[in-house]
């Protein structure tokens, strides 16, 4: 872990602080709404503004990085996590509108968690795009996965709440956590499928085969299969077994983390996706 004081990293740190402030203000808002304090609406608005400010700071960092490397910054782990931090606020707005409920604090916490390795862990040395990454499929393939992963992280957070929240299965917005997780997965699953299919198509163009049995491909497939199983179970049994549904969503979320971090960082999984290394 290392602190860097260039403008790019300072922007990321500022975005992280704004997200943390949003988390704190969201907690204040909840406490006030529960009758333990005043100004719930004000704290909620301030939390939203703080999260939005974090987004603005992150997107300025993203643009600076784009100018510096002269390609869409999605090449290495630093750039991927910076991008995850950028897309979180707009996705949070969209999901809160589509799913309902008040997940601002939760989403801001996820934003902080994904910006943390970009700011403090991964190397940010600019790199040229290697030949295999110079294709128009690079952006939609990675972007589809990034969007899916963020929404699935939100779904996994809802599933954790469903499993562990005592007597609080209904979120502030009146939406059941199990239902919220399901709605989020239905939003992410098409993107996950698109990422998998675009990756296969790109693999065919670049390497000659749409499926190479590469560890990264297999972990992406594992993630997809877990959510596919969840969709089938949810379709067959609905919310009859909410805890099993939630466990599957959490397992899917863990598979996302493994695919994104463990497979890229561990030497256990050498493969053709080596340019995704830190």
């Amino acid at each position: 872990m290392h602190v860097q004081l260039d403008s790019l990293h300072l922007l990321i740190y500022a975005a992280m602080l704004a997200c943390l402030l949003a988390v704190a203000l969201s907690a204040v808002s909840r406490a006030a709404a529960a009758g333990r304090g005043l100004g719930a609406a004000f704290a909620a608005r301030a939390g939203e503004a703080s999260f939005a400010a974090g987004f603005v700071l992150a997107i300025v960092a993203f643009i600076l990085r784009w100018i510096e490397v002269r390609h869409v910054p999605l090449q290495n782990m630093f750039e991927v996590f910076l991008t995850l931090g950028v897309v979180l606020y707009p996705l949070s707005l969209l999901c809160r509108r589509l799913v309902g409920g008040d997940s601002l604090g939760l989403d801001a916490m996820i934003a902080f968690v994904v910006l943390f390795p970009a700011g403090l862990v991964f190397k940010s040395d600019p790199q040229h795009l290697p030949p295999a990454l110079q294709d128009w499929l690079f952006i939609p393939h990675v972007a589809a996965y990034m969007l899916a992963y963020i929404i699935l992280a939100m779904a996994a957070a809802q599933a954790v709440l469903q499993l562990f929240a005592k007597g609080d299965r209904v979120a502030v917005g009146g939406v059941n956590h199990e239902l919220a997780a399901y709605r989020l997965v239905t939003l992410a699953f098409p993107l996950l499928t698109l990422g998998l299919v675009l990756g296969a198509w790109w693999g065919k163009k670049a390497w000659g085969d749409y499926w190479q049995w590469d560890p990264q491909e297999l972990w992406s497939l594992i993630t997809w299969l877990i959510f596919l199983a969840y969709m089938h179970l949810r379709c067959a049994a609905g919310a009859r077994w909410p805890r099993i549904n939630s466990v599957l969503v959490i397992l899917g979320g863990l598979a996302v983390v493994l695919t994104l971090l463990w497979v890229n960082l561990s030497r256990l999984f050498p493969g053709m996706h080596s340019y995704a290394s830190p």
Partner: protein
Amino acid sequence: MSLRRIIPAITLSFLAVLTVLSIAGAFVGAERAKVMFTSPTMVAYWVALLVLLLAGFVVFPKLVRRPGLLAAHFGTVLIVFGAMAGSQAGHDAGARIFGRAKVPLSYMIIAEGQDSSVMMDANLAERMGDLPFAIRLNRFWIEHYPPEGKNWILQWVAWVPADANTGQPQEVLEGQLPWEVGSDMEVPYTQARVNIVGLDAAANGQPRLKVRLNIEGRSRETVIEPAPGQLMKSLSVTEAMGLSAGEQAADEVRLLFREPEGDVRDYKSDLSVLKDGNEVARKVIEVNDPLHYGGYHFYQNAYRIDQEQYTILGVVSDTGLELVYAGFVLLCGGVFYQFWLEPIVAAIRRRRGGHARAA
């Protein structure tokens, strides 16, 4: 227990088995995973999966009535079927049934200006078959990014003579000297040393490397400065120091001061397809942009440079590919329709219905 209960349970079991096998496959590496997933046992699994998918259409009419579910499931059938057709076993079956012998995966090595129709194995050691046409390599080249921020390279080149006693042929050897101002290094194949005195830029912007050559009491200071617009300048150490045969183990030794190459941007091969000696197609291929001709894709796989430049092409049969691509489109279209479009359409209908009732 009815089929409507059994099939979902079997489906979940199939997904669980594939998930566990995929986890195992991720740990054993791509080559062994490929062997595992294409083994006869797994072929039985894939066939059973196809049967299960088709049974789903019969038992659950909803799968047929709802366009999204129909497309996604039928797309999966096409992907599995296309992948089986494109496998080694699928190619063998195609050869037996249709008499159409194709090699699923092979490689070609072609020298610049030459043509070939020979398909080799991955080690380029064993002949796997011949194409019904030939591929000519008109030109192979590598493109680089600009060498931003990199130091110019100081390199030595030695023309080592043939040695009749050892059978050593005449050869040109070269290597880099890791330099910085102040460093003092041996010049390989000589008894001379080179001392880097300084580096500055000429008025035309070209770098000027000031060096001092030393050998047993003799010393000479000189500047290696590429001419305007040139990317390299060489200095003969042999001539500059007047090296005798006893002072060097080569016919000549030179220092080269040259601009560094940037990172590789792309590998490109200009290919022609020849049928009966006539060119019937031509394309410059590069990574991500293969040539497609005669049921095969030709990929820029690798290259080799020794006395000549060679390109190494990956040659991949396209059998089953259309089915897989059609399956991809149906699968993606199906899930987007089912989970994105259908809820939007339903919401619009509900809203319109509400307005109509209100009116």
